[in-house]
């Protein structure tokens, strides 16, 4: 009886938190199809106007495209680097190995505002114009710990004897990596890539310092927040992006499942 009541309370707690977590998100959906430009009750009328207007709003779409490009580039770079560090960590032994791995993981524990201003300083000193590239570089740095942890945990599950076998059969080491190791860690690389993608796509604190004249979507969204009548368009885009992100996340989950 007691255990049952405990279970019931935990379950109720879970579902009330779920409601609390989804309520604001449901609101966003609601206001993206509300005809009134002000985000308040009562809801006026159901409309898809904002979605229509969205496709005429060049600056908004450009910012989404910027985010997409940064996320695509930085996630690919972070995945490649993560795979390299994983192989270095698990298949080699060298001096300074621990330092390299620690450096790759350290962005997890550096507050973004600190990393953001440090990179801003670097690019200023080197006279590098702030652009999507500088944002992409920052995102690669912060995504690397995630890709490393995902890929390394997969690679750790495989015995090095598979590689030894390939080399005994006459493959050189690059060929072994390409034909044996890469296929083995591929599912992890896909889910690492998707994780890095979503980390970058949503990132704001670094991008605000480094974006320059080409804003990413979060930066643009932020600059538009004070213009109340622009908000429904932004929300409409955000709803579409949310659906896009969710699709990506579900694909990532699929791959993670297949892995195990």
């Amino acid at each position, binding site marked *: 009886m007691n255990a049952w009541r405990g279970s019931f309370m935990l379950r109720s707690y879970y579902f009330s938190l779920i409601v609390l*977590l989804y309520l604001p*998100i449901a609101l*966003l959906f609601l206001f993206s199809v509300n005809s009134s430009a002000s*985000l308040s009750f009562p809801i006026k009328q159901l409309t898809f106007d904002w979605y229509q207007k969205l496709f005429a709003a060049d600056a908004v779409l450009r910012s989404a495209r910027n985010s997409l490009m940064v996320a695509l580039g930085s996630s690919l770079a972070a995945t490649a680097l993560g795979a390299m560090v994983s192989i270095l960590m698990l298949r080699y032994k060298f001096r300074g190995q621990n330092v390299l791995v620690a450096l790759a993981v350290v962005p997890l524990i550096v507050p973004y505002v600190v990393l953001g201003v440090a990179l801003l300083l670097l690019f200023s000193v080197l006279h590098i114009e702030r652009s999507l590239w500088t944002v992409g570089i920052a995102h690669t740095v912060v995504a690397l710990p995630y890709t490393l942890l995902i890929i390394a*945990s997969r690679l750790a599950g495989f015995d090095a004897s598979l590689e030894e076998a390939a080399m005994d059969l006459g493959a050189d080491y690059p060929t072994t990596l390409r034909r044996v190791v890469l296929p083995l860690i591929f599912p992890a690389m896909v889910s690492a890539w998707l994780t890095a993608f979503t980390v970058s796509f949503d990132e704001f604190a670094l991008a605000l310092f480094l974006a320059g004249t080409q804003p990413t979507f*979060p930066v643009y*969204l932020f600059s538009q927040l004070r213009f109340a009548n622009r908000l429904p368009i932004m929300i409409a885009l955000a709803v579409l992006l*949310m659906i896009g992100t969710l699709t990506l996340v579900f694909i990532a989950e699929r791959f993670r499942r297949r892995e195990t």
Partner: protein
Amino acid sequence: MTAPTLPSPKSEVFGGGVPKGRRGWGLDRRATFWFIYLPPLFWLIAFLVMPVLLMAAFSFRPDMRGDLFQIRTPTFSQYASVAATGSYWRLLGISTLMALGIGITAVLMAYPLAYFLAFRAGTRAGFYLILLLIPFWTSYLLRVMAWKILLGTEGVINSFLIYIGLIQEPLTALLYNRTAVILTLIYVWIPFAALPILAALQRIDLILFEAAADLGARPYHQFMRITLPLSAPGILAAFFMVFIPTVGEYVTLLLVGGSRGFLYGNIIQDFFTKAANWPLGSALSMIMLAATLILVLLATRIIDWRQLFE
């Protein structure tokens, strides 16, 4: 950083004699090493070590004048002025305390969730977990904005209360202060904090509970003597996963905090943007970085992080 030496193979067979008739470019493990080693090394030195060193160097500059590259006589004047300004310390204290409070609250609220998913959710645990994480995967800015819609003067709660005639003037206490920032951050972090706790709980061998029950331990004692100690690494990891981003937080405040909710991260941001006093901003950043790293190093003494990523 120590210079890397040539890699030595882990086993005799592995890097040993190269068999005949090999394929590819004929690179052995040693030669391949440099192709795998140099890109991440370059990347991390160029975009992580260099910027932080540069920031450290900048924090010893007297002012913004002169070329950014120019070597100036190092001075402690920035640190001295930080030390002399009570409001910086107060803000650092507030930011740290706030992050501490948010970290602890988020962990406390996430623990029952993780417990439910690990022990009570049954076969649908996977689905429940994804359901919990979906909000975490949606835009951060947007989730914060959603709260703004809920709490703002023309927001949902106020409009609703006016609509039903309970109040005439909108309530302003709901937004633009630190309470709003704290509520928002707790809300945002709960699902995230549940993850490491869940990982630790799932690692507990259920046989332990049977043994404890056989020996007559009540559920309360089972929890205190088995579940809690064994999930401690997860609890600490969860705490730091919340604490570190929160202590440097400046975004949420820009959205819901207004000028009354100023935090340490915001003065750093200000000195690098509006105020354009980079040396002072660098000094403030270095202090924050040092504080965070010391805390994490202390934590690694207590728990073994690797357990969580197996």
